Structure formats: structure tokens, C-alpha cells
């Protein structure tokens, strides 16, 4: 290609304290090309994105804009230069309207430099039209589902008329239909000469959308190559540097008595008349589109939200509504969907986080024993093969996959009889994903009843003994393993099943 790349990194290194997040990494984004970025969690993808976005400054090496070195002093500079970013975690202002979120700092003006609200709302509607979203521009972004928040982020990015669009796992929270929409918008932007950088853990998506792909491993550049002629296995090998089974199928385990029984559970306006059982040794998947009410059922079963009607029974004992303490005492554990907000206390250390669920057991006399806490944490860190420097480190420094292991450790330490995991592998790299699957399978083998909520069909099909499918707040189908296919699950999830 004769023209210089629209945006590029040349031999960039970046360290945070002792952690070398990027080592001598180069990447070139060309106009009219979608570039994939692959790598396990902790490989340095997010640091690379933030360097391109002006959030981080490289310690050494250069950021090149149209072939010329630039020095972004902050995100505002990068935005001025036409770089738009969709971050992995939605970064919205909960109190402001959706339209204000999209146009913050660039609101359409009328006389005297005042904000032209009418035109702002009209342009927001137009953007949502292109994305095929039915959101009200004037509603506050507080209360939007993660998928809707992500769509607002996408609208924000494309509203910038960017020359470079960087998407850091934009699809993690989206359903199939929304992903298709996003891809058609991305494709249109590419045809108009935009340079795109696309990051996803779903390798299929990289193969569908991208022309070239760059792989990072442990902060180092491994390869940049055309996607044509590359196979899944090639890409995974570059990412992990070894062969791995991408999916770990569940091993057969003896199915015991019913551990969790949910009968006619209803929470008005959220889900209706949900009944199912999970037996010891079973993994039951709860599938469905985003917003179908899966997480909400899990939250209600665990007592975070109240239910209006129905009952929940654990090992024969009926749970009171709205009491997580009672649920924990009865042997329930819930690994939530959003590990940063709900699963972990980000400011606390690894050992403190793991200790949180067992403060009573860790007591020696009136006080918490630091040694007991540390022993418990070390024990579980070893059993789950957690990668960490010191147990006293904050969980914030761990990669996503390892953070998820800490959440698992925290709950497994309570020795639950029923484990509910909500999107256990979201945003987790391939290697750790297989480990989490192996772990869940082992737990089932030990006689724990596992209820797994997942939006990833291969995971659902590979792991589940039975698949429960939710559609718009109701249980639409129950499919045994033998009959579960992508088609049967998807048609139930989209409400096409009889």
C-alpha cells in the first residue's frame, strides 16, 4: 500500500510499575481496512487501544498519524485527530440523557453558542435509526441494559465521523441481531475509507469482519498478517503459543438428587412463571438473548431481588424471598455477570476478596485471623491455578480471566451445593476459558449442581446437560443435551419455537 497508514504505532513500549504491558509493539491501521487484534487477556490489547486513544503515552516508540509522529496529550487530542474508541466497559454518564451522552462536548449549537437540543435529539434518532435501535434520546442512560449501553457507545463513536474507529470488544454484550447491525455499520464505514481496529474474543467475528489481524502475546507483537489463508487454530496458536482445546466438553458425572428447585417464579415486569430443577452433578445452561431475563432470574433465586410469586427450594429447604444471606446459608453461590462491579471489591487485595464470603469461619476469637484468610486464599489460588504475584496485591492488577478465578474462588470457598454462574467466560481469553470450563465440569463431578447463564452458544452446547431457553421473561424451551443444536436453541430464544 502506497499511502501511509492512517494511524500507526511504531515500536511502542509501555510499563506500569514493574508490569511491562507493551514491549516494542507496532501496528498499522490503513484507510478502508478492518484490522483485527487478537490476544489473550493480559496480552496488552487494552493498553494498545488506550495508547492509540491518547489515554496512555508510550514510554518509548511513536504514535504515527498519517505517517507523521504525533504526541497525544490526552483523549481530547486523539478525538480531535479523528480517533473514536468504543471501550470494553461502557463509559456513560448515568444521570445524563442518552443524546447528551452521545454528543457530550460536541453538542449541536444554535445562537450564542447554546446547545440546540432539538437538533441533538433528531441527530440521535437518526444515529439509532442507522443502528436499528429503538431507544429514546431523552431518557437517562441510568437503567439501560449493558447491551443498550454498548449501543449508545457505538452511536457515540460513529457520530464522530471518525477516520479511525477502534472497537474494544463491542460485541461481548450484544445479541446476534445487534452484532449483525454493528457489522453492517462497520462495513459501511470501512467502505467510506475509515480505518477500523476490531478486538474480540470471538474469533469467528475476527474472521468475518477483518482483512488483517495482529496478534499480541504477553505484551509482545507476534504477527500481523492477512486473514485469508489463516485458520482458527493458527490464530489460537499465535495467541497462546501452544495448542489448546478451544472448548472443554463436560465430562459425564453421576446425576444425583434435586439440589435446586424453582417453581413458578415471577417478578412482575421482569420474568413470569419460571420453573426448573437442577440436580447434583448436572450443568444446566440458561440460554436466551440479552434482556430475556436470565440474569434477573439468577438474581431473584439468590435473593438479591425479591420475587412476587413462586418458590425456590435448595436441598429441600424453602428460601425466603429477597435474602442473599439465607440463600448463602442454604448452600447457594452466585458468580455474577459483572465481575468488576458485582463480583469483586476492586480496591481490596486478592486474599481479602476471597475471604469476604467466609468472615465468620475466618474468625479466631473476636477478630479475623489474617493467617486463616491467607491460607484460604492460597489454597484456592493454587486449586484454580490463579496467576498472581502476591496475594496482597489488589485484584485490579489481575487480568480479566484471573479476576474471574478470584470470584470463583471466593464462592467455591463457601462449599456451595448449588453454583450459579452468570456469563462465566465473558471477556476471558481462550486459554483461561478452557480452564474455567474444566473447572465447572470438575465441580459438577464433585456433586455440585451448576446453573450456567451464557450467551455463547458453543459454550452452552459444549457444557450443558440440559439447556433452558428463555424468551422475553418466560421459559421457552427445555432441550436435553442430545437435541441441543445452535438451531434449536436459537429458534427457541428468538421465540420461533412452537
Amino acid at each position, binding site marked *: 500500500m502506497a499511502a501511509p497508514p492512517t494511524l500507526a504505532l511504531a515500536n511502542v513500549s509501555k510499563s506500569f510499575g514493574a508490569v511491562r504491558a507493551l514491549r516494542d509493539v507496532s501496528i498499522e491501521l490503513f484507510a478502508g481496512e478492518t484490522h483485527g487484534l487478537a490476544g489473550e487477556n493480559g496480552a496488552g490489547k487494552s493498553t494498545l487501544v488506550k495508547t492509540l*486513544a491518547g489515554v496512555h503515552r508510550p514510554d518509548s516508540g511513536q504514535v504515527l498519524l498519517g505517517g507523521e509522529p504525533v504526541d497525544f496529550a*490526552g483523549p481530547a487530542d486523539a478525538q480531535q485527530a479523528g480517533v473514536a*474508541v468504543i471501550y470494553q466497559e461502557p463509559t456513560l454518564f448515568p*444521570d*445524563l440523557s442518552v443524546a447528551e451522552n452521545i454528543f*457530550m462536548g460536541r453538542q449541536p449549537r444554535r445562537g450564542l453558542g447554546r446547545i440546540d437540543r432539538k437538533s441533538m435529539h433528531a441527530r440521535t434518532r437518526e444515529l439509532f435509526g442507522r443502528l436499528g435501535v429503538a431507544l429514546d434520546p431523552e*431518557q*437517562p442512560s441510568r437503567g439501560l441494559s449493558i447491551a443498550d449501553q454498548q449501543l449508545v457507545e457505538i452511536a457515540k463513536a460513529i457520530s464522530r465521523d471518525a477516520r479511525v474507529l477502534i472497537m474494544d470488544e463491542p460485541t461481548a454484550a450484544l445479541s446476534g441481531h445487534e452484532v449483525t447491525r454493528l457489522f453492517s455499520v462497520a462495513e459501511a464505514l470501512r467502505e467510506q475509507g475509515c480505518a477500523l481496529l476490531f478486538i474480540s474474543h470471538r474469533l469467528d467475528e475476527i474472521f468475518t469482519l477483518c482483512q488483517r489481524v495482529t496478534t499480541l502475546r504477553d505484551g509482545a507483537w507476534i504477527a500481523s498478517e492477512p486473514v485469508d489463508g489463516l485458520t482458527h487454530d493458527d490464530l489460537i496458536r499465535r495467541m497462546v503459543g501452544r495448542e489448546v482445546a478451544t472448548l472443554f466438553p463436560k465430562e459425564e458425572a453421576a446425576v444425583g438428587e434435586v439440589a435446586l428447585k424453582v417453581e413458578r417464579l415471577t417478578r412482575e*415486569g*421482569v420474568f413470569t412463571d419460571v420453573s426448573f430443577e437442577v440436580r447434583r452433578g448436572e450443568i444446566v445452561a440458561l440460554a436466551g438473548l440479552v434482556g430475556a431475563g436470565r440474569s434477573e432470574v439468577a438474581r431473584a433465586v439468590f435473593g438479591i431481588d425479591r420475587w412476587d410469586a413462586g418458590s425456590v427450594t435448595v436441598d429441600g429447604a424453602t428460601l425466603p424471598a429477597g435474602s442473599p444471606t439465607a440463600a448463602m446459608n442454604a448452600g447457594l453461590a452466585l458468580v455474577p455477570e459483572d465481575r468488576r462491579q458485582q463480583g469483586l471489591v476492586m480496591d481490596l487485595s486478592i486474599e481479602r476478596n476471597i475471604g469476604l464470603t467466609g468472615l465468620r469461619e475466618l474468625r479466631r476469637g473476636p477478630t479475623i485471623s489474617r493467617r486463616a484468610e491467607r491460607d484460604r486464599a492460597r489454597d484456592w489460588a493454587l486449586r484454580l491455578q490463579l496467576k498472581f504475584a502476591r496475594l496482597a496485591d489488589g485484584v485490579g492488577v489481575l487480568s480479566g480471566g484471573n479476576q474471574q478465578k478470584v470470584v470463583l474462588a471466593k464462592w467455591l470457598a463457601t462449599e456451595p451445593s448449588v453454583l450459579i454462574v452468570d456469563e462465566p467466560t465473558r471477556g476471558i481469553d481462550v486459554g483461561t476459558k478452557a480452564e474455567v470450563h474444566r473447572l465447572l465440569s470438575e465441580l459438577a463431578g464433585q456433586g455440585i449442581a451448576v446453573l450456567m447463564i451464557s450467551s455463547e452458544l458453543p459454550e452452552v452446547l459444549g457444557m450443558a446437560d440440559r439447556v433452558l431457553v428463555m424468551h422475553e421473561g418466560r421459559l421457552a424451551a427445555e432441550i436435553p443435551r442430545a437435541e441441543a443444536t445452535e438451531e434449536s436453541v436459537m429458534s427457541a430464544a428468538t421465540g420461533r419455537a412452537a
Partner: protein
Amino acid sequence: MTGPTTTVAAPPEQAPGGRSARSRVDLVFRARELSLVIALVLLIGATGAVNPNFLSGQGIEDILLNTAILALLAVGQSVVVITRNLDLSVGSVVGLVAFVTADVLASGWGLVPGVVFGVAIGAACGLLNGLLVSFCRVPALVVTLGTLYVIQGVDHYIAHGRQINAVDLPPALLSLGNGSVLGVPYLPLITLVCMLLIGYYLRSYPSGREFYAIGSSPEAARLAGVPVRRRVLTAYLVSGCLAGLAGVLWLARFGTVIGDSANGWELIVISAVVVGGVAITGGVGSVYGAALGALLLTTIGSALVVLRVNPFWQQAITGALLLLAISVDRVLAMRVARLLRNRSRHG
């Protein structure tokens, strides 16, 4: 940016329930200003029924005069609180400005230079707070608690036990405190103008909206390229300037100052802001609400005097009102969450 592949068959028209659900949400948010007005009307009506003097021209003028300074401070404070910060030093700034302005005016300065001087002192205090909070990244609570005492100390040092009396001050200043135009005293008019200007700026200008953005999510504001530090600095500057102006008005109103005017007012100001519906966690509320909060607290104070209630109750009632305001906020927030939830299902 309208590629053929991105056109959409069905424009996302409002679902039938959407518009009405939103206007209900709007109503819930506006309910704060509305409920303050209703509370005020009830309070004034009830007190007026018991003691008609309360509704006399003099009675109402007194309330307006008493509100003016508190409301001015509440307006400045709410700009800071909206950015998820706090300014505890405003009471000390009022005291310092009132005294040093009295000093320079007594030594023969004209009214205009005197007012400018007072506001400049306030601005300097605000600048100090703003620099410490935004650039040195010290939590606002600690910084402004520190400056509260430092400024108070400076005030005491300068005053040195002296008292400056009305006879030493230029008549022009005193007529600012007592005079009126078309029957409306100057002080509340000044407050009204400041409130309207700042309220309009915060609502209608892109940079004004950034104050809300910062308070709503500082991290998202940073990533969106909002100049967070500059805006926070500005918020403290505004609060400082208004506190300076309030100091001058204090002097104009009371005529006599000693070293510790407005001592302890910061907490009343913050109460007014919170009662007025500005979320202490930032991002929500308006300066109008804050000013109404100040009016309500002042009116309660006056009503209790008229009703011959023990002054002890005034503080207890202010406290109860604060708790009530926070509880109402909580309930409203849950209502809104439910509305939005039902709406995203059915809308």
C-alpha cells in the same frame, strides 16, 4: 456518512407507551422543585393563618433579605456539588471578605472598587481550593476543611478583635443593603440575577453540561475528553466568587462586622443544596432547586420565630428536613428505576 447498507427500513418511532413513560420520568425529576414550592406555600399559608403579620410586606421582605445571602452561597455550592465535590470553606470566605472589605471601605475606597476587591478575595480563595482539589488531587472534603480553618485564622488575625461599624462605612454600601427597586430589595435581586445566569449557563452551554458529566462519572468524562480539572477549578472559582459577593452583601446588610461573620454557615448552605435536590454524589440537580432550598430553610426559621417555637427546634427541623429530602430522593430513584424497567420491557 449515509452508506446504503446502513439505511434502515423502519425508523425507530416512539413506542406508544414511550413518550408518556418519559414524561412521567421527567415529572418525577421536576417533582423536587414542585414539592419545594408546595411545601413553601403550605408553610407560608399555615403560618400566615396563625399570625397574619407573617404575610405583611415587612415580613416577606425580611424573608427575602435573609434568603438572599444563603441562596447566593447555595447557588455557588451547587455548582461544586454537581461536579461531585464539596466546598466547606464558604462560611469562612464570607467572614473574611466581609471584614477586609469593611476595612478598605472604611479607609476610604469607593463602592465599586470595594465590591470588586471583595469578589477578588473570594475568587482567590476559590482558586486555592480549586487548584488543590483538581491539580493536587486531594479529596475536596479535606482540602476545604483545611482552607475553612486557614481562612478563618487569617480573618481572626486581620480583625484582631476589632469591630467595624456602620458609621465607618460609605452610605452607598448601606443603601445597597436596605434599598430597593420597585419595592423589591436589591439583595434578592442580585441573587436572582446570579442564579438565572448560572442556571442558564449550566443548562444551555456545552461546557455547562460538562459539570454534570464530571459529577455523573469522572472516569467517563476523562475518556470523553472533558477538561475535568479545568471545570472543577472553574466550579471552585464560581463558588469562591459568589462567596466573596455574599461577603460584600453581608456587610451591606448588617453594617457591623467582627472577625467571625457567617461562622458555621457552610453546613446550612450544604443543607439547602441537598434539600434543593442537588445530589451530594454529583451529576443531578439545579441551582434553582438549591436556591429554593435556601428559601425554604430561611422561611422555616422565620415561621418558627413568628410561631414562638423554641429556637432549638429550628435546627432539629432543618435536620429532619434533610433526612426527609434524602429519603424522598431514594424513593424517587427507585420509582424511576421501576418506570425505566417496565418501559424497556413494554416500550
